[in-house]
């Protein structure tokens, strides 16, 4: 009742913004009808994770350890990556990447990082995965692409496209980013996407990009939430060569911070599928 009074008294003054707000609401409700999320439909690679056991070794290889400099992959991450069944396996139609709390090779946590380097690399395309994420402070799972020339063309010059990153203590938020020369790490071109009345660790969500010459479109489920173009980045556009896929669950480090007393281990990122399309 009193709200109606406020509404009436504000109505005149705020009418234009009110209309705008309502329009936004309506348009966001109708996203799937009015907005074209994806256009690339020619499937060129897919792993549906239908074969039990280790991931398909014709598609996936592993990063092992704590990074080439032993520094937690440049981020002071706390985990030791392995290819053991405890950390990575296919089961019941899903790829399971599990972060565990255990002493292993001097680290306090173990986890896994899969990649298609040398096995599947592609320039442009639609890359998507259907994933249920873990949760808890210190968990930092990601589904991302790295330029296939990083050995010779040192990061960030080789380019990095983060399709999905997520911090376990913010289970309603993911973000997509692009890293290149002059816009990497904390200066990367990035945007958050938040779920309303839902969270990413209780159900599966689709994370994808559609990447072509001079653009990368980021989407979650049926919502296109960002487009990055050469005009958006503060340096050279380095996304016109083949990239490979990485999926990992990092623990701790400078970005997510360390796990705390509320963090429950083990934590598993569950991947239903990874699919790549071309135009």
């Amino acid at each position, binding site marked *: *009742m*009193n*709200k*109606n*009074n*406020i*509404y009436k008294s*504000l109505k005149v003054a*705020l009418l234009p913004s*009110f209309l705008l*707000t*309502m329009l936004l*609401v309506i348009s966001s409700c109708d996203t799937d009808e009015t907005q074209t999320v994806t256009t690339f439909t020619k499937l060129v690679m897919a792993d549906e994770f239908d074969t039990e056991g280790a991931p398909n070794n014709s598609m996936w290889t592993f990063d092992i350890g704590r990074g080439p400099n032993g520094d937690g992959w440049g981020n002071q991450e706390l985990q030791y990556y392995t290819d053991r069944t405890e950390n990575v396996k296919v089961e019941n139609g899903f790829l399971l990447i599990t972060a565990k709390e255990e002493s292993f090779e001097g680290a306090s946590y173990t986890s896994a990082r899969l990649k298609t380097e040398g096995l599947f690399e592609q320039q442009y395309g639609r890359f998507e995965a259907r994933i249920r994420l873990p*949760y808890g*402070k210190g968990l930092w799972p990601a589904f991302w692409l790295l330029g296939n020339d990083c050995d010779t063309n040192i990061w960030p010059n080789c380019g990095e496209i983060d399709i999905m990153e997520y911090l*376990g*203590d*913010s*289970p*309603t938020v993911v973000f997509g980013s692009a890293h290149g020369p002059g816009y990497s790490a904390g200066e990367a071109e990035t945007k958050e996407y938040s*779920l*309303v*009345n*839902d*969270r990413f*660790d*209780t159900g599966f969500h689709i994370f994808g990009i559609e990447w072509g010459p001079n653009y990368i479109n980021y989407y979650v489920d049926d919502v296109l939430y960002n487009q990055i173009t050469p005009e958006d980045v503060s340096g050279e556009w380095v996304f016109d060569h083949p990239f490979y896929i990485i999926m990992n669950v990092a623990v701790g480090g400078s970005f997510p911070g360390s796990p705390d007393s*509320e963090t*429950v281990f083990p934590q598993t990122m569950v991947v239903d599928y990874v699919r790549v399309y071309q135009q």
Partner: protein
Amino acid sequence: MLLVFMTLIGCERELSDEAEFATFSKTGEIFTDNFVGLGTNFFFPFVSDGAKADVFSVDEDVAFESSASIRIDVPNANDPDGSFAGAIFIVDGSGRNLTEFDALTFWAKSTQGVSDITMGFGESKFQVARNDISFSTNWVKHIIPIPDPSKLTEEKGMLFFSAGTGNTGGFGYTFWLDEVKFEKLGTIAQAQPAILNGVDVAQDAFIDIPVQLTGLSQTLNAAGRNITVTAAPSYFEFKSSDIDVARANETGLVSVVGNGQATISATLANVAAQGSLALNVNGTFDFAPTPPARNTNDVISIFSDAYTNAPVDYFNGFFSDGFQTTLGGAPPLDVNGDAVINYTVLNFVGIGTFQDVPSINTTEMTHLHIDIKVNESIDPGDFITIQLLNSVGDNETSGSVRFESDAFTRDQWVSLDIPLNDFGLADRSKIGLLFFISDATISDIFVDNIYYYK
């Protein structure tokens, strides 16, 4: 966004009006600008617990996003009409169906910061409480997750609060609540229920002596932050590994029915609870002999269910001098309503009556009675000395009586009736400590019926 929010509210209100004649309303709102659907007689202060009755009003000058709020005036601790503010809002009418919500939420602020507010919902069977809620001087939204919404098909207890002056040095203050409602936040997940505070407890139990499960809670992650609430037993499903030994009912009371071992575990909404109770049952409990009836003037009881007991400071002083090992007595065991002290790891232990309670004037009495059962094998050289201290800390004097090993029998109650003259105290008008001293020769005893008499 504000306007959109209002529109949503408007929609929900229409819904609630339509649903008014349904058997169990699915309305979530409790207070927006006024109470929503609570009827006329809905405020029930916890007067029998010492709460002040007259603490509640609807404040039309203070509000969050509206024109009115619930105002609670927490009284001073020395208010003769009640030392704290506590009450429950119960629907005056039929209960509500809250199964489609996942949390009770509200906005709150107070005239000064306090961090020991308890709030919750549930009339009794499905009561939920969140303790240590912090109120600050600006409006903050608070969340009390529902441990298992599917249980709340007909709930009348919409909101309760309990607020004292523990954080404010006894001085009263005011807090306001607004936009109080059950909501489907969608961001409440990752349940971690617990019984017995998440601890795996192992203990002896006795046939026909039930054990109450305590420390029941549900922890849920609300958009990244864990929130723990105490949850009534009826939210849990209890399971026994051997129902011929022990079984738990929906109130969390474990009945002990046979000899053997049984472990009680629990689930809440199909999630296994942390914590369990492993019971080792070996026969019935052996109670101390019941003392005879005596005239009130003929007995000063320290610890007995047969008489009215004098107040004591403690049954275990836990003297922090680095020498005391004794556990137990804090508090005494409650064996089906009969209080018994079980001292374990005994070397010495004192029962205090000198700090915050009057010391015991035993001048008129002739004897000290104590029942002791030794729960372990007794070796020659074992002993228990009973020592009394008079006028503790003020020209104190002490006297003791020592009982050798042959005074006790393993697993049997022994009644000691000690002439007070044997303690050799010139003055026994201000007894402040009663010690049991074994120097660890005897380490596990039951004690009952400690009283002076004539």
